[in-house]
């Protein structure tokens, strides 16, 4: 048990607090320009594929909603190699990417994991950053704010000549939104990690960043360790004798959006050894329930997680005094994942949490089954008092 806990802490430290300029330490092979030498394989994510060829890689970003497998195609061409012919629809990206624009905090988390957050030269918004490296670069003026959605500063972006813009839009809707940039020769890749419905599937998008920066060797190693820790934690949780029931989210004006049975959150709950009343519901999104249908479960569930914009029990009662009757409320089992929220109001759960699913899982197991991980200090989660 102690060994496992140690592993969790170690791997967390490794991924979260590792200093950024890793380039010098990485094996020469991964950075030598021989792109074929280390090939990664995708095991958990369903949203993208990587194919390796001589001097280039082909990445497909899939739109799982429409089951079209040719939605977006990218040619990742090694610098100095000729662009292969026969891919008229593909966007060409020169690798390794030396500078990039990140539109969401998750992209920052991914870049941190891969060790390339120093290459982020532009951010959609400064509001959502935790990474010390990126914040330092912001302070020094090396990273600029480029705006989000309609406020995207196209002129600034084009003048920056970034090697890549990582967008977070739906693969399907992508085309028109960034047309100005792609026309100007700036490759725009869609990072649709948020469409994945398993924690490991989400985290595996680090491999896309790895392919873009030729860091497959390093990332494979780190990701395998994440998977290993995650799996052993999940196994541990499955041995738990009880499966306390959990409710998720905050009802608003009579409706309650509860994660559906095949969603990211439902998988987390299952792997953490929790009971979930809607585990068998269909869909990977969320269920729009009316308050009354959720009430019988809410009244007896022992744990209430991810409550949204509240920081105390008093806050919850101010929203609606009826919540005082919930078993979870009476027991004080109220947990929000906002512990690592910085002074700007940016929550690291959305940044490093995405690439450290094992840490999030450890938090959840520790909440539901404190006896299984004695001594564990919550990293992302915080109890509301």
């Amino acid at each position, binding site marked *: 048990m102690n060994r496992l806990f140690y592993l969790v802490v170690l791997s967390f430290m490794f991924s979260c607090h590792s200093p950024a300029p890793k380039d010098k330490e990485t094996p020469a092979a991964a950075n030598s320009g021989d792109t074929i030498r280390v090939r990664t394989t995708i095991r958990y994510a369903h949203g993208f594929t990587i194919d390796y060829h001589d001097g280039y890689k082909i990445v497909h970003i899939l739109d799982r909603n429409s089951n079209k497998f040719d939605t977006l195609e990218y040619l990742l061409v090694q610098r100095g190699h000729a662009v292969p012919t026969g891919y008229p629809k593909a966007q060409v990206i020169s690798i390794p990417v030396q500078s990039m624009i990140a539109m969401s905090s998750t992209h920052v988390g991914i870049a941190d994991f891969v060790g390339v957050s120093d290459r982020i030269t532009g951010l959609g918004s400064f509001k959502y950053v935790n990474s010390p490296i990126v914040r330092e670069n912001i302070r020094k003026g090396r990273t600029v704010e480029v705006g989000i959605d*309609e*406020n995207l500063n196209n002129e600034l972006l084009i003048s920056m000549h970034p090697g890549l813009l990582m967008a977070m839009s739906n693969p399907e809707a992508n085309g028109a939104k960034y047309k100005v940039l792609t026309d100007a020769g700036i490759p725009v890749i869609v990072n649709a990690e948020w469409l994945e419905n398993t924690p490991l599937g989400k985290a595996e998008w680090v491999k896309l960043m790895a392919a873009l920066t030729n860091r497959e060797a390093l990332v494979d190693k780190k990701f395998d360790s994440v998977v290993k820790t995650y799996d052993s934690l999940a196994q541990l949780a499955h041995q738990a004798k009880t499966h306390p029931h959990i409710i998720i989210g905050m009802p*608003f*004006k*009579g*409706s*309650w959006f509860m994660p559906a049975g095949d969603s990211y959150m439902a998988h987390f709950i299952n792997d953490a050894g929790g009971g979930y009343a809607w585990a068998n519901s269909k869909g990977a999104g969320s*269920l*729009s*329930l*009316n*308050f*009354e*249908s959720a*009430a*019988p479960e809410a*009244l*007896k569930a022992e744990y209430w997680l991810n409550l*949204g*914009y509240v920081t105390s029990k008093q*806050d919850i009662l*101010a929203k*609606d*005094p*009826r919540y005082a*009757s919930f078993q979870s409320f009476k027991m004080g089992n109220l947990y929000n994942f906002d512990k690592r929220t910085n002074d700007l*109001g940016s929550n690291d759960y959305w940044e490093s949490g995405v690439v450290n699913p094992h840490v999030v899982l450890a938090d959840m197991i520790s909440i539901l089954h404190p006896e299984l991980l004695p001594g564990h200090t919550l990293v992302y989660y915080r109890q509301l008092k």
Partner: protein
Amino acid sequence: MVGRWVALCVLLVLIFFLDIAVGPVRIPLKSVLRIILSLPGEDKTWHYIVGQIRIPKACTAVIAGCGLSVSGLQMQTLFRNPLAEPSVLGVTAGASLGVAAIMLSGGGIITLYTIRELGISGSWLITLAGCLGAAVVMLLVIMISRKVRDNMMMLIIGVMVSTATLSIISIWQYFSDAELIKDYLLWTFGSLGGVTGTQLYILGLVTLTGLILSFLSSKTLDALLLGDNYARSMGVTIHRARVIIICSTSLLAGSITAFCGPIGFVGIAVPQMARSLFSTSSHRVLIPACCLIGTGLILFCDLIGQWPGNQTALPINIITALVGAPMVVWIILSKNNLSIYG
């Protein structure tokens, strides 16, 4: 006439009870009755559902039904236009702007803290913002209406004011946090289920004030049916009458919109039903009639939304629109009604 009142009241009590008895969670009728009568021995969950969810929701429905119908009636008289109602002439949009100002303002942090510091009075703040927003738009529309005589033109102007007001909210959304916008968008779906405890008391109190103001001016409203000039010649101080009507309409539409979201069509459909059912124009009769019919209509819409087995939260304003929109078309098609107020 007495028969109609009695029938309406009986129907109302029936539908009110039905709204409490029926819901997504099946509870035997006997148990519901026992819970209402506070008899012991019933399941705790059922107790919670009936006492904490269904009864507050039904009470909110009653308040919203009265308030929205009467504010619609007053606006129809004031603008002499059978299609006038809070959502048509932009008053609801104004209230939404007030609410958005509170929910979205300043990137959220400052306001959120303010509301948190104020504690319960946050509900008062939202109410005040809703009513003020409603009153501002109402004043604007009245100023424009003095230049415009044509009914249809007035409605188009109402739509314009509405659109402009909603655009301001859209602009506001650009500068707001995603989380706050999500809350705001959920609010725009309209719901009766989110009003409990103190909020319910506040909403009830404000609505009651609006209704009393309205009933006190029922004689004035009658005179206004003939237009400002005739009304003045019969002794109405137009300026004062307008202020009172604006106040009571803003209190009614503003507070209900603030708590339940924008709910349309009730304000058009119900006064029309009241007029034909009691075949009168006297506000002394129409105001209580609107309260009864409006309550019944909203309870009915709520009943549709929470039919047994339906787990999904169906926004109340979608249902009122489904019921109310055909009503509006009917009013437009029957020429007799349209030329009503000249």
